[in-house]
Each structure stands twice: as C-alpha cells, then as structure tokens.
C-alpha cells in the first residue's frame, strides 16, 4: 500500500483493514465484484489488494463505458464524420480508442475535423460557433453522463439549433449486472455498487440483486476508506446470511437518486431492444437511443449509418475476465499481443478497464520490491 500516509485517516484505514481480516477469517473465499471502472482504477492505484486478505478476491466489472463499446460503433461514428462539413466531437477518453481504421485522433491527423470536448454542452457550443458546419457529438457513458446528453438535446431544441446531433452510445448498468448474474459460470458472492451512477439512479434499482438473486450490494465511494468500509459492510451481510442493498456513499448518493436527471433521460431517450457490449455480447434493453420526439438530433436517423460489426478475436477472453472466471493475466493475449499501447480486447482500451489497470499497476509492480507497510 504505497500511498497510505497520504490517505485521509490512516489510522481508521488500518483499523478497518483489521476488521476485514477478522470478519473474513480463513475458512471461506469471498468474491466481490466492483461494478464501476472508477473503483477498479482506484483499487489498483491505491494498492488496496495489498491490504486485503487473500481470501477476498475483487472481480472487476463491466462499468467502463469506453471498454464495453463495440469497435463497430466507433467505425460507424467515424463514417458519419466522413460526410462533408461534419465536426466529430467526443470526450477525451474516446480519442485514442481504436476503430478498424484507427482512432479518432488518427483520423484527425488524416484531416478529419475531430474536436475534444469536456461536456455535451461544449459540443452544442461548437455548433453555435460553426453554423455552416454540422456538429455530431459521439455520446458515451452510463447514467452518470446520459442525463447531461439528454438535457443538452433539450437545450438544442428549445434554442432551435439545427446543425447539432448526437450519436448515442449511452448504456445502462442494471442489464449488464443482470447479464453477468445470468451467466452459467458466474461465481460472485457480492457487489460493490457504483458511486456516481447511483447519484442518478439511486439505490432502489439494485433491490432485485439482493431480493431475487440473494447477493448483497453496497453502493460505495471512491476513497480507500470508502471501499474498505463497503467491504466490511458486505462481509457483515455475508456472514449473517443476509442480502440487502446498503449505501456507504450517503454523503453523495440519495436513496431515490436524482429525479431531475431521471426526468431528462425519460424525456429524450428510449430503451433500445438490444445493444452489443464488448466482452458480454448482445444484452436486451441495455442501451439508450434518442426517441422520435427528438429525432432531428439523432445522428443515426439523420445520417446513413453503415452498421459495422467487428467481432473481437476469438483468442481474447474479455468475457471470462469480466465475469471473474479469469484474472486479466490469465488471458492468452494479456501483455503479449494485447497491451495498453495496442489493445486487442475491450478491457485493455481505457485506464479504467480491468486489464489496463492490472497491466499498469500489477504488471509493473511485479518487478518492484513490495512497499506494503500496512498489512
């Protein structure tokens, strides 16, 4: 645990780690999935694995929107941007993600008008500033970013802006968790629930995980102490044979979520019948499209979309890693053909993907002397 002195309340962290060891005992193995890519990044960055006992295994879930986006969608978005006078606008996270013929950044180098934006509202601003061009915002993200896209589309309509559209790749977290729970090789005991997605959807949508599937879930913050406390809460439930939804991140996440955000999403989006996820395949009702009321802002209705499908190489075992059947380094391609510089599978694409996180921290650490100071 390299940075422990920098953490807030290091003594409390030590105590919580002791509590985890006491609760976990030695008899049983616990497999917990953190759903959110932000948690995955934090777990590796903070070296949390070093202070957890060996019988607590953290499985890294599907919650990195860049990672789960099929390459064909990137190809489709870039194909639209080949049209004359189209500006391709996307978050910085998308810029290096490879399509079949290169990333958005590589397309920019070849002359495409590609712009990085921080916010969908900045993409709309681009449209206002460039009335002779068409700005297509390549939207990605879970419920954390979907409401902002929705509100931006509503603002575009009320302002009467006509040179703006959205290529919508927003996905929803619950169907992905369901797909993982439904898979026959699933071996999870509990979930660490996403923090920021829950700011929007609240805690109620997780209740079926506890009630129907019998798995405890604790919505967690991102600090080391948050995640350790969430693991304590999960262990208490597992040891008592309970399955409840609990909220460790109450200081940010209201139980009912953000009603205004949910309302904006309901106004602009409708569920797609199915959507493809890299590593998980097609999942029904797992993604959002722009509804007919806002069709003029839907890039998929406004432009010819080739509908490209690119299958991941058979040798890539992203699905098994996502479901916790394999550790990242157990995939045949890990660290050889598939690296953060040349990602082949979904989970190597973004720093929040479990393979990239594993590669960046664990792989390098293997050559270093362990600096663990708290265990």
């Amino acid at each position: 645990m390299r940075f422990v002195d920098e953490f807030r309340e290091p003594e409390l962290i030590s105590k919580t780690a002791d509590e985890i060891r006491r609760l976990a005992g030695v008899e049983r193995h616990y497999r917990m999935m953190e759903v959110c890519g932000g948690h995955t990044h934090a777990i590796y960055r903070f070296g949390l694995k070093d202070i957890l006992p060996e019988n607590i295994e953290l499985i890294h879930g599907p919650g990195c929107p860049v990672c789960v986006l099929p390459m064909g969608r990137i190809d489709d978005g870039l194909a639209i941007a080949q049209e004359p006078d189209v500006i391709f606008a996307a978050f910085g996270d998308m810029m290096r993600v490879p399509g079949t013929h290169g990333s958005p950044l590589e397309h920019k180098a070849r002359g495409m008008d590609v712009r990085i934006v921080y916010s969908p509202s900045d993409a709309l601003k681009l449209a206002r500033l460039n009335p002779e061009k068409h700005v297509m915002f390549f939207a990605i993200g879970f419920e954390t970013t979907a409401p902002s896209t929705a509100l931006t589309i509503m603002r575009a309509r009320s302002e009467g802006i006509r040179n703006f559209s959205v290529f919508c790749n927003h996905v929803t977290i619950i169907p992905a968790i369901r797909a993982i729970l439904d898979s026959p090789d699933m071996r999870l005991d509990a979930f660490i629930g996403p923090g920021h997605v829950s700011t929007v959807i609240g805690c109620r949508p997780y209740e079926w995980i506890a009630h129907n599937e019998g798995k405890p879930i604790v919505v967690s913050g991102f600090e080391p102490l948050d995640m350790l406390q969430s693991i304590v809460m999960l262990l208490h439930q597992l040891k008592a044979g309970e399955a409840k939804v609990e909220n460790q991140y109450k200081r940010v996440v209201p139980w009912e979520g953000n009603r205004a955000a949910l309302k904006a999403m309901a106004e602009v989006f409708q569920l797609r019948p199915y959507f493809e996820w890299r590593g998980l395949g097609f999942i029904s009702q797992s993604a959002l499209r722009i509804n007919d009321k806002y069709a003029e802002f839907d890039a998929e209705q406004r432009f010819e979309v080739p509908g490209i499908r690119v299958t991941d190489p058979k040798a890539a075992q992203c699905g098994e890693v996502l479901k916790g059947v394999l550790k990242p380094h157990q995939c045949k391609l890990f660290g050889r053909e598939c690296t953060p510089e040349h990602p082949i599978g979904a989970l190597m694409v973004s720093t929040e993907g479990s393979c990239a996180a594993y590669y960046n921290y664990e792989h390098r650490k293997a050559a270093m002397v362990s600096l663990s100071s708290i265990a």
Partner: protein
Amino acid sequence: MCLAIPGKIVEIASDNQDSALVDVVGVRRRIDLGLLHDDRPVPGDWVLVHVGFAMSKISEQDAADQMNTLRMLGEIEGAMQEVKGYGLGDVN
C-alpha cells in the same frame, strides 16, 4: 469523462438560472444547473460536476476530500484540463 470534479458556485447568471459560474481550485467555468432543479444550489454551495453539469450538492469537506482523491488517483491534471474545456469552457 467519469471524473466527478468538485466546484464552488460563484455566481448564477442573472438571465439564466440554469447557468452558473463555478470555481475549481482557482479555475472558473460555466456549468449547467439544470439537473439540480429539485435542490437548487446558491452561490457559496459546493457541487460535484460531471461533464459540465452539476449532479449533486456536497459539503465543503466532501469537496476537499474529492479533490484529494483525484490527486491520489493522479487525475488532477486531467481534471483541470477538462474544467478548462479544451478551449470551449468559458474560462474567466
């Protein structure tokens, strides 16, 4: 994109209640308050900002802790670049 960046509301636009100027460790930009209609922030309040939209009100302590988390995650530089909006963020 997934970063939650804490900011302090400096001023709400007189002609648009949904547009606020926030301060993120000295850098200012306009954000949208439209997703906090149920719990409108006022100048002096702290909010967590996702992709240019205030998503929740937080305490000053939580804001400081979140900034510290971003620092520990090595994300401060990225966060500040995002706040500045790659030249589009209405930075004052």
